């Protein structure tokens, strides 16, 4: 267990390095001068050169990368061109909102996905299985940004039950735990939960069917265990994989929230990315992507280590 954890952590280091290289490269694959959005249109050549030296763009790529990485390791991701505030501040403020939304969505998706998965796996090939499997296929096939729009049409535009956009009244960007703020979260969270719901349902269905076909289940039944007792054994066997899938899905939602945040104007990292792209705010784009990718890599590492701790059969 300890050996595996150590190996998993050591394996993560080169991946993290590679991720930072990709994030660094983002600014440089971008067409045009990286200074174009802060330079005044009539800037003299002398001013251009001074700024280039100031930002370090006159150095070689490896040199620039080392300087950038050194600053990033100290928590300095540069300055947002659009707002003039440090990128770290902007990202950290937004990341809380996204984390909140993604965590709630993952929780909903996990509960529904496990329910559909268990029903489908237990009554495999019955009409119940067909219905539950259809729900799973729906979850992985629906364009979630469209589902969000349809939910807004039904519950905001037509019925007027729930707010359509934002994280709170009056464009509030800081989420608080009360009924009003909660009502703003309902539609985006449900929309987002559909993806993990489908994937978890598919995984759990396959797991349950596989476990039920094993001999130890027949053994348990032969020993006269109640159906509930057998069910608890199935849960125990399916739990490590289901929880691992849930953890990975949380990471996907954190990184993939941009479409849903755009539909619901949710003030998280997705909205931040959206504005960074359209204002050509490259430091902000780079910083946000780096933070989200780091989250994803570290989360995957933690999930793997926890899974090996939960499931003694895994010896890698």
């Amino acid at each position, binding site marked *: 267990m300890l050996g595996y954890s150590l190996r998993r952590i050591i394996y993560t280091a080169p991946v993290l390095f590679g991720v930072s290289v990709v994030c660094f490269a983002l600014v440089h694959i971008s067409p045009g001068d990286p200074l174009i959005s802060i330079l005044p249109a009539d800037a003299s050549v002398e001013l251009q050169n001074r700024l280039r030296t100031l930002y370090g763009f006159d150095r070689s790529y490896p040199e620039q990368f080392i300087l950038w990485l050194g600053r990033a390791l100290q928590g300095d991701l540069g300055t947002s061109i659009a707002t003039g505030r440090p990128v770290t501040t902007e990202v950290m403020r937004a990341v809380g909102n996204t984390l909140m939304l993604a965590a709630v969505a993952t929780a909903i998706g996990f509960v529904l996905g496990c329910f559909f998965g268990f029903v489908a796996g237990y009554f495999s090939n019955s009409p119940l299985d067909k219905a539950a499997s259809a729900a799973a296929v729906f979850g992985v096939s629906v364009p979630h940004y469209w589902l969000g729009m349809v939910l807004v049409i039904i519950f905001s535009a037509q019925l007027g039950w729930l707010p359509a956009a934002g994280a709170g009244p009056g464009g509030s960007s800081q989420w608080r735990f009360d009924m009003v703020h909660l009502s703003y979260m309902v539609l985006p969270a449900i929309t987002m939960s559909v993806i993990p719901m489908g994937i978890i349902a598919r995984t759990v269905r396959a797991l349950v069917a596989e476990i039920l076909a094993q001999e130890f289940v027949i053994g348990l039944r032969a020993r006269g265990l109640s159906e509930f007792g057998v069910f608890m054994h199935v849960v125990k066997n399916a739990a490590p994989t289901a929880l691992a899938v849930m953890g990975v899905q949380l990471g996907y939602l954190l990184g*993939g929230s941009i479409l849903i945040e755009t539909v619901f104007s949710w003030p998280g990292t997705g909205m931040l990315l959206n504005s960074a792209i*359209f204002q050509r705010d490259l430091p902000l784009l780079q910083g946000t992507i780096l933070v989200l990718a780091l989250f994803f*890599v570290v989360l995957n590492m933690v999930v793997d280590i926890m899974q090996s701790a939960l499931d003694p059969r895994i010896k890698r």
Partner: protein
Amino acid sequence: MVDATLSQPILNPVRSAGYWQNVGKRLMRDKTAMAAAAVLALIALAAIFAPLIAPMDPLDGRLINRLKPIGTEGHLLGTDELGRDMLSRLIWGGRLSLLMGVTPVVLAFFLGSAIGIIAGYAGGWTNTLIMRTVDVFYAFPSVLLAVALSGALGAGLGNALFSLTVVFIPPIARVAESVTTRLRSSDFIEAARASGAGALTIVRVHVLGNVLGPIFVYATSLIAVSMILASGLSFLGLGVRPPNPEWGLMLNTLRTAIYAQPWVAALPGAMIFLVSISFNMLSDGLRSAMEVRQ
């Protein structure tokens, strides 16, 4: 059955033809998969023959006709925010949407297979080097990587296609590598090597035929995701540019109309959903027909 097999000339690759015939037969019996294939064929044909089928010019609109409801005289599915005929735009939109959804997976299938097979067959340091590089791209959630690349490169069809291809290469390469690695130590490969066949010959004759099937099935399961992602990029304003008809972009420009004509605004998304669920069902059918286990 026996007679048919015996009457085959021996030179023909009887076994492999029989295998694919069986897959085809099993797939034909799968009603869900066939229904999905029919839906996809219909949408693809409509897109290909759009100039003949579409009742109106998809780019020509009159503001006086804007946002007409579904079932309007002359505009069966209503009109959009610029008064353009929705039915015509949905038919034409299939061209770019299908192109943007399918092309990245096709490109990634070839590139990812090549990368994975090389890594799997070569083994050792080559494998480590290639697969660790692939892992770096795998370390980004797919939506994030697509948005990051096309966001940095700027909006446009070519950049979106490039970004999506980069997104789908790592998962395909991983599958290709694991299938090839498993195959590499099998007896018939050893036998081919022992009888003096070169690496290129072994890969061409013995490896490709055995690994491309599983990789292909896996790749087809990615098309649905690719459709959603590609239209998602256009929805964000990072893919196809207006006024070209594309379902994701149409969904984006119609977002402001959800209070005026909600169901017209939702139509392009329904098309993306229909295509993506059909690809998923067809891919599931293909997987069980080929008896490929994941």
